[in-house]
């Protein structure tokens, strides 16, 4: 049961048209660049993508949108993307908008074997339409369900050949929960090391959740809003 694969092409080789994928990242931070490039190259179609955002026109999931590979996006925020907007308005693309915390928790629930849970986000809004509501301690909550996805594709900073993952900074975001939530989980990492090189106390995702791991290459790590202060 070797978890290590040579590259993104090999890692995604099992992904078929029509599947549901989770893709880690917040904005363009911590996205699985290599795997997205491989999916674009492969041309897999009719994908449902669960990801907090949909990238920008020419980066991230935006690249898959350009190739019309995405049937449906499940996200909390999808701005900053003209092609997305065009496809949405033309009816080529479906979108399901979910509160960010609910999105995170539905991933977490999937990885934790919790089929459903109550959360307050969206009560009284259109997000609540058709959902069971219930009062706990005088406050109203919605019943939300764990996501069901075929693959989770995440990006980590360091990983070992056992699949253990460590994330860096805010590139962590949705990656750990998604890594734990996929039926099959692919992790691309900046540094791939041997077992024992990562401190067992510092691992964010235990290897048991990861099926395929590879060392990514040529990370661009594009910055969406480069805000700086003057001086040094």
């Amino acid at each position: 049961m070797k978890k290590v694969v040579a590259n993104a092409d090999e890692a995604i080789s099992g992904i078929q048209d029509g599947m549901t994928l989770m893709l880690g990242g917040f904005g363009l931070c911590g996205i699985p660049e290599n795997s997205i490039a491989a999916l674009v190259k492969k041309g897999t179609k009719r994908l449902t993508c669960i990801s907090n955002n949909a990238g920008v026109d020419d980066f991230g999931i935006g690249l898959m949108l350009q190739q019309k590979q995405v049937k449906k996006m499940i996200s909390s925020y999808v701005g900053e993307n003209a092609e997305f907007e065009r496809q949405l308005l033309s009816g080529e693309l479906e979108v399901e908008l979910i509160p960010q915390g609910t999105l995170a928790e539905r991933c977490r629930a999937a990885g934790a074997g919790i089929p459903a849970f109550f959360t307050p986000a969206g009560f009284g809004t259109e997000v609540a339409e058709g959902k069971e509501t219930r009062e706990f301690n005088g406050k109203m909550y919605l019943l939300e369900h764990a996501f069901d996805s075929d693959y989770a594709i995440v990006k980590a900073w360091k990983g070992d050949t056992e699949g253990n993952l460590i994330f860096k900074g805010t590139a962590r975001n949705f990656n750990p929960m998604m890594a734990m939530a996929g039926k099959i989980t692919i992790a691309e990492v900046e540094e791939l090391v041997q077992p024992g090189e990562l401190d067992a106390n510092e691992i964010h995702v235990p290897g048991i959740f990861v099926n395929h791991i590879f060392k990514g290459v040529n990370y661009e790590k594009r910055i969406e809003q480069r805000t700086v202060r003057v001086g040094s």
Partner: protein
Amino acid sequence: MLDKNGIAKRIARELKDGYYVNLGIGVPTLVANYIPEGMHVTLQSENGLLGMGPFPYEHEVDADLINAGKQTVTTLPGSSFFDSATSFGMIRSGRVDLTVLGAMEINDRGDIANWKIPGKMVKGMGGAMDLVASAQNIIVAMMHTNKAGESKLLKECTLPITGLGCVKKVVTDLCVMDITERGFELRELAPGVSVEDVKKATDGRLVIEGEIRQMEL
């Protein structure tokens, strides 16, 4: 009348030592510039950072270190990173002492609408619905009226709701109001603003009683 910075400055007076604070995008973000000297306030960014520092100097820019507005930021001594589930866990479990958000509309029962305009491309609610449904202490920072001069403090929101009965206080260019069972209770007037100005600009139930102070900034 206050400008955006004036609103931020006034909201900064609500901060207390030791507070954990989540600042929304736009005017709320400016509150960080007015944290009183010597006061220890920790900023939470819902993408997974506690202890957000200022924007980086050019050489400090790190693509793996952004805030919820996707801007490059820095950390401070004592900062911590965590995943988004933990981040919204701390929001939902009421650990954030103060949440400051912008709004398109609010009503006199504390409902807020700030995520969707029918007919326009809907970008999504991001973390706003989680924040408004969870925070014990939400202050809305907004202009009192829209560009057409119509009140944004309403009897009923006309836009799709982000959350029900969650706003406790609103700071606008004109005034500070608490939102209670009775409606918008006027507390403070911005410099050069009269009670009459507020009455004219407020559509929802307005309560003008007791001492109404001049705003201190």
